[in-house]
């Protein structure tokens, strides 16, 4: 077990930190307050290679490992959640899923431009009537020769208004539930596809969250990822990647809440001493330290499994549940430490709290993760091998190939 980062991992972390601190940190308070979305930041991330970080070099990515990927997510969410959300949908839920399930031709067509940051991508599973119960989605795909005719609506979709490519899930036969789903790549510009924004969100106000509507959208059969009926499995393995980015980002949010709190503890005086001297305040700081470090260890454990191409559904879910709960708690306590100032957007901690709240809901609600963890522990749940297992990180490819 080696707890040291390699020089490459440190360089990636520092580069992403420098980017987020310089390009976003000075403006984020204002963007968040005004609900301003700045897609140019995403294009900049693309041109710097951040949006292709864990994708192998032969597909236009950086070929970095999952530890580097986690560190990048941590640095991004330490500045704002909207930056990490891009990593979740574009990289985790979409690109890494194409890398796992798509044919070589499909990878060349969609993965390569995504990894290079030339095209933005997202993931559409949730619908107005189905979130946790994803087997119950109602968006219909009807086969018509070489096309599927798509009708329905997706809701709460990050980057809905920005993405060029959508990995969309639909049902061929609602009575078949999970077994009736397919995954399709839908491209912006296809006739019958419209998108819009969701306003009035509690958090991620500097980000793009919206809906997608499909009205008789004709999607060529060659846009189907995997087989008919494999959609649910594909969605679940996508979520194994998305959840990882959310967990890694939560570590950054805890860190940011902790750092803001420590700073304030030294600045603010009450009853003749700085508030950091009060033991009840210290308890909150101690919880933040424990939350940050335990969460990071869970994330890195999942990262190591991913690097080696080993199934990690359980470990990733555990990291996501734990880190997101601790992030919300840390941000909430950070407000407490800041007193009334914490309740105002003069300080960043209320934004951290609003942003942290969403992550207890998306990519598996807290309750769903508890069910998953208990299911594994009680033996009610096991992982069955996938037709396309999660590929290892580039640096482990030859090792894994020689093993099998």
């Amino acid at each position, binding site marked *: 077990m080696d707890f040291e980062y390699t*020089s*490459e991992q*440190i*360089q*990636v972390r*520092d*580069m992403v930190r*420098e980017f987020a601190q310089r390009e976003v940190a000075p403006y984020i308070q204002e963007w968040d307050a005004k609900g301003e979305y700045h897609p140019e930041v995403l294009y900049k991330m693309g041109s*710097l*290679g*951040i949006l292709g*970080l864990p994708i192998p*070099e032969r597909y236009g990515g*950086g*070929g*970095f490992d999952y530890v580097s990927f986690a560190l990048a997510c941590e640095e991004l969410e330490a500045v704002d959640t909207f930056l990490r959300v891009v990593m979740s949908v574009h990289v985790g839920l979409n690109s890494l899923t194409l890398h796992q399930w798509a044919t070589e031709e499909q990878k060349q067509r969609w993965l390569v431009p995504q990894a290079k940051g030339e095209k933005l991508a997202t993931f559409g599973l949730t619908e107005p009537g189905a979130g946790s119960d994803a087997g119950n989605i109602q968006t219909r795909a009807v086969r018509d020769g070489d096309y599927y005719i798509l009708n329905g609506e997706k809701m709460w979709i990050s980057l809905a208004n920005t993405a060029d490519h959508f990995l969309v899930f639909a049902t061929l036969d609602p009575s078949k539930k999970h077994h009736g789903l397919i995954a399709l790549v839908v491209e912006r510009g296809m006739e019958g596809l419209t998108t819009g924004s969701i306003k009035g969100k509690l958090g991620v106000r500097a980000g793009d969250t919206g809906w997608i509507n499909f009205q008789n959208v004709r999607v060529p059969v060659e846009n189907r990822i995997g087989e008919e009926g494999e959609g649910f499995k594909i969605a679940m393995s996508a979520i194994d990647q998305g959840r990882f980015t959310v967990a890694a980002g939560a570590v950054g949010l805890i860190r940011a809440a902790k750092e803001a709190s420590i700073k304030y503890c030294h600045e603010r005086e009450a009853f003749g001493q700085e508030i950091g001297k009060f033991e009840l305040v210290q308890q909150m700081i101690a919880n933040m330290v424990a939350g940050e470090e335990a969460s990071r260890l869970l994330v890195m454990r999942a990262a190591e499994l991913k690097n080696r191409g080993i199934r990690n559904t359980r470990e990733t879910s555990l990291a996501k549940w734990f880190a997101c709960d601790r992030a919300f708690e840390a941000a909430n306590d950070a407000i407490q430490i800041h007193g009334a100032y914490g309740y105002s957007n003069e300080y960043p901690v209320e934004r951290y709290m609003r942003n942290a709240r969403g992550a207890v809901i998306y990519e598996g609600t807290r309750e769903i993760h508890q069910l998953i963890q208990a299911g594994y522990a009680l033996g009610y749940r096991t992982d069955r091998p996938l037709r396309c297992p999660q590929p290892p990180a580039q640096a482990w490819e030859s090792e894994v190939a020689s093993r099998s």
Partner: protein
Amino acid sequence: MKIVVLVKQVPDPNAVRFDPRAGDIQSGTPQVANEYDLHAMEAAIQIKEQQGDVEIVAVSLGQARETLNRCLAMGADRAIVVEDAALASGDSAVTAKALAAVLRAEGFDLILVGQETSDGGTGSVGPALAALLDVPVVSNVVALEKQDGRLTVQREIEDGRQVIDLAPPAILCALSGLNEPRYPSLKGIMAARRKPTEAKSAADLGLADDAAQSRVSWGQLFVEEETAEGIILKDVDADSAVDQLVAFLQERKLV
């Protein structure tokens, strides 16, 4: 044109803690690239960006893989490390002799070094190399321009700058005012995977057995005991505090 940049890995100055019992800095202090050396590296990369046909070789003595990886990611073309513990723990004359052996074997048009290291702090390796290699040296470099094969260098001096014009080969010792070292880009970090780092031993360099003999050895570090006690004015209003301070200074004929 070949530019050799000399870099050293040092204890992180922001993390260094003194261990009074060991009489040394605490073990396990994280290691980083010596700051001035990164400015030297940046200067080399800027010359390469302007001129094109430049090869940059990063050279280090002692444990420095991380630092050399960073230099490769910033833009150096290859790296050489002399991983000889005896040489690495020698005095600055030993360091200079070992590096001079690398430089002679390697050849160079320009050598860029940091003005000094944050751990040793002697500032003597650049000048010592100049003597050993018989090339001119400019210290405290804060600006550098290369044109038509000549170098125009600005050197920081007390209250100003001195402009020096010289023809390479030469050694320039960089200060932090010279430039802003870049962060490696992801493309740079990726490119570094395919750039070679060559390890050399004292034997490879053809150094005699006694090459690592230091004439200077490092003793213990200690913190000076505080001598005079200060006076703190507490619980007095500003006016009387000023009066008391002025009286104190006048008494000692300091004002």
